[in-house]
């Protein structure tokens, strides 16, 4: 990130620097310096916020993670012990296992749904599409907490609609947050919330494609399926990679929905359900701020590895980061 800033700041200097000679060169160098300073001035507001609210807390958390505090012992320096403990902690391992398997199932489903909707909305142009686009996007405008609370009520075994439908035929409905169903119960909530947002990103990318390409394809005899899969999808692949990375990071840091649904899950969602919930409970329930910091960094390492692996395999398709 810092490198990117530097590049941004030094770019104008490089391009506008005239190639003079002698004393003029000296003066221009001075001007160059002044311009450089102005460049830094422009990014200063961002840099201050970035340092104060992101870099400094991160460093402070890292500092915390190197210490251990026991109720009976006080604070002691323990180096990387917390990290060793975190990666050996069955609760953390289980949580990471859950979010990774959740990501592996959820992300393709989410991608397929949002891509399909975007392609349909791009291909059809009636009054209805505008309305549909808004409606599909709407769940994203609902705050995640409200959305989760709402699903908590919809899932309710006593007065949820699921129960009412099943009771019509005299059966009792499955509880979507029972240990066997919670995976798909949560997947439903997250897909509902995010598919619309990803759809808008893909849709915007589709709108950016030059329509003459479609005309050329039509003249060459391509049908609309071929236009969709041979032209549209490859051309929006960088948007797809982008939302994949978003979804991957978001899913590995899964917190809000399971945290809110804990109360109505009847014990299915445990205090170590996902790594983030585990870190939260370590910090704010058990006052282990040091171990919680280590857990957060350990999760950060896992996220970094996962994203790196993913970007490595998609490096030819990607492009938004290179």
């Amino acid at each position: 990130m810092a490198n990117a800033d530097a590049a941004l700041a030094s770019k104008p200097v490089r391009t506008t620097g005239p190639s003079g000679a002698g004393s003029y060169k000296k003066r221009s160098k001075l001007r160059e310096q002044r311009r450089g300073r102005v460049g830094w001035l422009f990014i200063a507001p961002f840099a201050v916020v970035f340092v104060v609210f992101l870099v400094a807390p991160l460093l402070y958390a890292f500092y915390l993670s190197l210490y251990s505090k026991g109720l009976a012992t006080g604070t002691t320096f323990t180096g990387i012990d917390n990290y060793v403990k975190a990666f050996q902690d069955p609760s953390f391992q289980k949580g990471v296992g859950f979010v990774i398997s959740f990501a592996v199932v959820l992300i393709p489903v989410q991608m397929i749904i949002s891509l399909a909707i975007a392609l349909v909305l791009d291909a059809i142009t009636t009054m209805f599409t505008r309305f549909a686009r808004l409606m599909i996007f709407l769940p994203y405008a609902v705050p995640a907490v409200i959305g989760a609370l709402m699903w908590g009520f919809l899932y309710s075994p006593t007065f949820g609609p699921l129960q009412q439908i099943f009771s019509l035929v005299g059966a009792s409905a499955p509880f979507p947050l029972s240990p066997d169903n919670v995976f798909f119960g949560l997947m439903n909530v997250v897909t509902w919330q995010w598919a619309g947002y990803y759809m808008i990103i893909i849709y915007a990318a589709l709108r950016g494609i030059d329509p003459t390409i479609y005309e050329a394809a039509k003249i060459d005899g391509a049908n609309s399926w071929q236009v969709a899969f041979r032209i549209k999808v490859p051309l929006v692949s960088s948007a797809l990679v982008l939302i994949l990375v978003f979804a991957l990071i978001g899913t590995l840091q899964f917190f809000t929905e399971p945290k809110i649904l804990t109360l109505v899950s009847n014990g299915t969602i445990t205090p170590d359900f996902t790594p983030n919930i585990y870190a939260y409970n370590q910090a704010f329930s058990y006052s282990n701020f040091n171990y919680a910091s280590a857990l957060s960094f350990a999760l950060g390492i896992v996220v970094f590895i996962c994203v790196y692996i993913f970007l490595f395999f998609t490096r030819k398709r990607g492009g938004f980061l290179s």
Partner: protein
Amino acid sequence: MKRNALVASIAAIALAGLLAACSGGGSGTDAKGTSPKLTSCSNKYVYPKAPQVSVWGWYPNMKLVVDNFNKLHKDVQICWNNVGQGGDEYTKVQTAISAKKGLPDVVMLEADHLATYEIQGALVDISKYGANKVKGNFSEGAWNDVSGAGGAVYAAPVDGGPLAMIYRTDVFKKYGITTPPTTWDEYAADAKKVKDAGGPLFGDFGANVPALTMALQIQKGANPFTYDAAKKTIKINLNDQPSKDVLDYWAGLVKDKLVGTADQFTTDYISGVVSGKYATYVSAAWAPGYLTGAGVGKGSSSGVWAVAPLPQWDASSPVQTNWGGSAFAVTSQATDKKLAAEVALGIYADPASLKDGWTNQVIFPLNQSILKSSAFLDNKSAFFSGQTANKDVYVPAENAYKGINYSPLTVYFYAQLQAQSALINQGKITGSQAADAVQASLEKYAQSQGFTVQK
């Protein structure tokens, strides 16, 4: 390149400064500090010029209680805020302790959380501020719950939670149960009888009320913790025979589908209570007030409730136990500890506040002057259709209560017991296995926190 290095070094210096500022705050010596500025109180002062003391508390009638206190005290005024009930408040308290600032002068706590905060140096021993003057107002068990080693007193008790069995008279009548079960064996037998006749569930084993589960284990003779604050030693006894027996008993009821497995205090559970899904509700004396507040006892569920003493393991030597109830503690962040202690000892201790509390059944007062008063004993409870519940059930239960030894590991312990109880409810483990798992994780946790774990 050079310029980048310069900027980088400036940034680094700035960062180092920031970090120093942060760690400076973090490595401050004792848990001293200032309580938050008293700018936003939920109440109005009666005597605005008197010194002010900040209080956190969540009693449903807290506003009235605070107003009563302020009217009676010209020399000190309370600035009160409700920052959440139970766990919500504890999260804030714990965070303020860790941050070493932000605690109010006086805070409402349940007895089972005192040791956790006391070991972090967050509570003041109020015995030197006159706490022992009110000792005579309380039963021995109630006073034990707020006392530490060496005569230390960490909070002024207000209310308790003697356990009893609330039941539905309509369900009992319909399925021919003429007298409420007096032992747990009878409880199980009656449960089977109701189920065989096609009736509702007899009770509920909620995983999210571990404090109740622990109270029931203690009834059978379990002594979960022996904790020595001075020596930092702890003896953990969570898988002894009584603990296992109680968990196995409930696991058996769950397995036979005689009791429900729903988490309590949820909307789902309350709607089940209202609609007659559960024949009994084993709970504390403050439960009727809570249930009323949640809408139970109105409409179709009015006039059907009654209460009986807690079923016993051995009817010939009954044991009473307790769930919840709260007290007011003075925090070590209080600016004027003497004044704060005056508030902690005086709040919710005036007759008008106590009367409002117990008539609405939101508290079960521990003050003996109330417990012995005929108005309290002869009170006909509206929720229990005119039953003299205090005289018949709750006061005898309270008088027989001996106190519980709590540990500083309460929050973690409850989380473990809750997780294992949920597994029992899912039919994955037996009660004994749950007890063993809780024991193992608590021993490990106590060691990681630096306690000497005695075997």
